């Protein structure tokens, strides 16, 4: 149940001409991880790779540009060649290209119109002045220019007289498209250029300002209108493309997923090594599927292949092996570090203890129901595997919260559900309830840590580290002895057990504790002795289950305890009570406080319950046995959970 799936290393030998068939067979089989073969010369990607990579990069860039996600769910279909998907990809490229051409055209048009607008708009404030000056000269023209770096204004001004025009300077303007608008009479182009030489470079122009329709103001208005029109056109085509992508998001993500699989397969030969015309492929496969892989590859390659199991000292990748119920909780292990191939997988225990701790902290029927509704909503609306896993974790945690809510008789902090009184089995906000729950938490903590030590012992025995195993056994004995001493010494139980009086049990457990301590010091040195205080601190750490629970319960109680005169409101509606604005405001404030207050309390409760439950696992529980540091098994196709499987398991294909 807690054992990892055993994975073995294999070497496949075949000829170069069977390369494509081998890739096809391996992908079709699925649960095999190909690794770099340790040989001198490596193979090349298959020929279609460039086309696949190009299409993938193109689609990724388009989807990324419009923020539509570029991490599709892994493709699970039987796609081993570009053939059959070429049409899809070609159609995708044609459609998107046609949109892109429109966008490019609109961008060009916008660029053409935005340049004149940038020039003219820089002199918007001087437009009337320019028009007035232009009206006084013959066939006026305007040229836009930019100062050369480190030019002296005096030099430029000195040129004005010689060119018989007027310089308008917008250097202080934010626009840096042009710094000067030089207005002059027609026929003075040469003089203008001479005047500017060494001082400024012409940016655009000259533009005629002669006639009523060509005044600077008119040109400014025309440039503005043109820029706005092309901007609108660009926005429209850009929006059309976005709409198209949004509407067909699933389709494009599916193509992307296929392309990613194809790309991975096309580059797979980079891990193969070549010896003459012979291909050498190495990888990992679950031990129980080795025979199936041999059959599959032999069938596909018409027996021109040899598969050998390799004895290796390499650390195998980790292949977790949990049921559908426990699988979502693998998320917590991955968040920390997955187990290495030599140790036990604690996921199944976390499946039980995480919701238990979560429920003990939050423990409220109302919050549990809200959590359950949220989980079901996420489950039905969001299809990604991450959301599906989170929703399953939340469902179990919410059910536990509801059950503890009944135990503590709490419904949004009240001891009643819409007028029906609840009777607490444990009133956790009273002194007696707190004392009881503190005892329960300490007991639970001791048990949880004991399980951790037992797992540590099993891991050590499995790895044949007997010294380490003896130390773990000493810890188990020490913890049990301390617990017995505490229970009988503190007077929690005073009656004899199997005829043995409490005093004798205290004495015996004290002796066992002492012997275990001596054994620990011998096996682990002084560090072992010091760690005893760590163990006691770890057990006390489980008191957070009740400490945080009380704070959450009191917060909910305070929110729900805000007074409201509902009867007066009902009386106003039925006419038995005079109209009173104060009552209405009181009810509205109450409703607002209920919603906002309980939302805050719920979010805080969910956050605290999750974080603290995780902490108890990561810090207290894992420190007793868990090493982690495993490398995830990365098969060519990931197994699909039975509940989501649309086709037969690929290993049985």
């Amino acid at each position, binding site marked *: 149940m807690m054992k990892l799936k055993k994975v073995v290393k294999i070497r496949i030998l075949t000829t170069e001409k069977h390369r494509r068939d081998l890739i096809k067979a391996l992908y079709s089989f699925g649960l095999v991880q190909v690794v770099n073969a340790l040989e001198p010369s490596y193979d090349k990607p298959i020929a279609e790779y460039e086309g696949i990579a190009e299409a993938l990069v193109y689609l990724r860039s388009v989807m990324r540009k419009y923020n539509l996600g570029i991490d599709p769910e892994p493709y699970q279909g039987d796609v081993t060649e570009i053939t059959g998907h070429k049409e899809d990809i070609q159609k995708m490229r044609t459609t998107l290209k046609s949109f892109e051409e429109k966008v490019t055209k609109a961008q060009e048009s916008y660029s053409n119109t935005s340049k004149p607008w940038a020039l003219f708009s820089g002199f918007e404030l001087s437009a009337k002045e320019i028009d007035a000056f232009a009206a006084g000269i013959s066939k006026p023209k305007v040229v836009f220019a930019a100062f050369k770096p480190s030019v002296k204004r005096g030099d430029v001004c000195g040129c004005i007289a010689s060119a018989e025009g007027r310089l308008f300077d917008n250097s202080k303007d934010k626009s840096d498209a042009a710094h000067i608008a030089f207005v002059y009479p027609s026929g003075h182009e040469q003089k203008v250029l001479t005047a500017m030489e060494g001082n400024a470079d012409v940016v655009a122009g000259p533009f005629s300002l002669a006639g009523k329709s060509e005044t600077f103001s008119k040109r400014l208005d025309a440039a503005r209108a043109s820029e706005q029109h092309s901007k609108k056109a660009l926005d429209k085509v850009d929006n059309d493309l976005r709409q198209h992508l949004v509407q067909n998001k699933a389709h494009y993500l599916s193509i992307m997923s296929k392309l990613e699989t194809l790309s991975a397969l096309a580059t797979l030969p980079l891990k193969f090594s070549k010896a003459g015309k012979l291909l050498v492929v190495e990888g990992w496969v679950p031990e129980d599927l080795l025979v199936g892989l041999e059959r599959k590859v032999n069938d596909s390659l018409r027996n021109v292949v040899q598969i050998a199991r390799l004895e290796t000292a390499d650390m195998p990748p980790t292949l977790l092996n949990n049921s559908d119920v426990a699988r979502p909780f693998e998320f917590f292990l991955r*968040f*920390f*570090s997955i187990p290495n191939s030599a140790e036990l997988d604690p996921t199944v225990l976390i499946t039980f203890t995480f919701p238990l701790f979560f429920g003990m902290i939050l423990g409220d029927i109302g919050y549990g129901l809200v959590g359950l509704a949220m989980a079901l909503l996420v489950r039905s609306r969001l299809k990604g595997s991450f959301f599906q896993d989170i929703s399953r974790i939340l469902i179990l945690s919410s059910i536990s919260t509801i059950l503890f809510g009944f135990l503590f008789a709490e419904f949004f902090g009240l001891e009643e559900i819409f007028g029906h009184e609840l009777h607490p089995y444990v009133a956790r906000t009273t*002194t007696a309830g*707190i*004392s009881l729950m*503190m005892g329960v938490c300490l007991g639970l903590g001791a048990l949880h840590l004991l399980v951790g030590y037992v797992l540590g012992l099993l891991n050590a025995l499995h790895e044949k580290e007997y010294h380490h195993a003896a130390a773990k056994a000493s810890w188990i004995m020490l913890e049990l002895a301390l617990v017995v001493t505490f229970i009988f010494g503190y007077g929690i139980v005073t009656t004899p057990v199997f005829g043995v009086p409490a005093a004798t049990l205290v004495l015996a457990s004290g002796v066992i504790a002492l012997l275990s301590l001596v054994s620990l010091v011998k096996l682990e040195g002084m560090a072992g002795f010091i760690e005893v205080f760590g163990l006691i*601190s770890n057990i*006390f*750490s489980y*008191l*957070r289950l009740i*400490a945080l629970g009380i704070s959450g319960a009191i917060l909910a109680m305070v929110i729900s305890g805000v007074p409201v005169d509902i009867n007066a409101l009902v009386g106003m509606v039925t006419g038995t009570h005079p109209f009173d604005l104060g009552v209405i405001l009181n009810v509205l404030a109450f409703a607002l406080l209920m919603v906002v207050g309980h939302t805050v309390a719920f979010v805080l409760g969910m956050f605290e319950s999750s*974080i603290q439950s*995780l*902490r108890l696992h*990561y*810090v207290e529980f894992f420190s007793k046995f868990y090493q982690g540091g495993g490398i995830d098994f990365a098969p060519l196709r990931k197994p699909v959970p039975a509940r989501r499987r649309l086709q037969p398991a690929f290993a049985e294909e």
Partner: protein
Amino acid sequence: MADIGLGTALGFLSAALPVCVGAIGTAFAMSSIGSAAMGYLAEKEGASGNVMVFIALPETIVILGFVLSFIMLSGVNAAIAGTG
């Protein structure tokens, strides 16, 4: 409001101190660890689980403070009940 007397008041105040001082101490510890942890995460992506362990470590101080506070509070309540 009932007159609780200076001794009882000091008793309640003392009962509040362990959890209060524990929380302040934890906050200081977590702020230092938290900033260091963020720096570490920026360097090494994917170590969030391990980092969380270090951030969560000082919290136990508050829990131990809570235990002391509860024991002291029970003592004060017992004293009040005993004196009638």
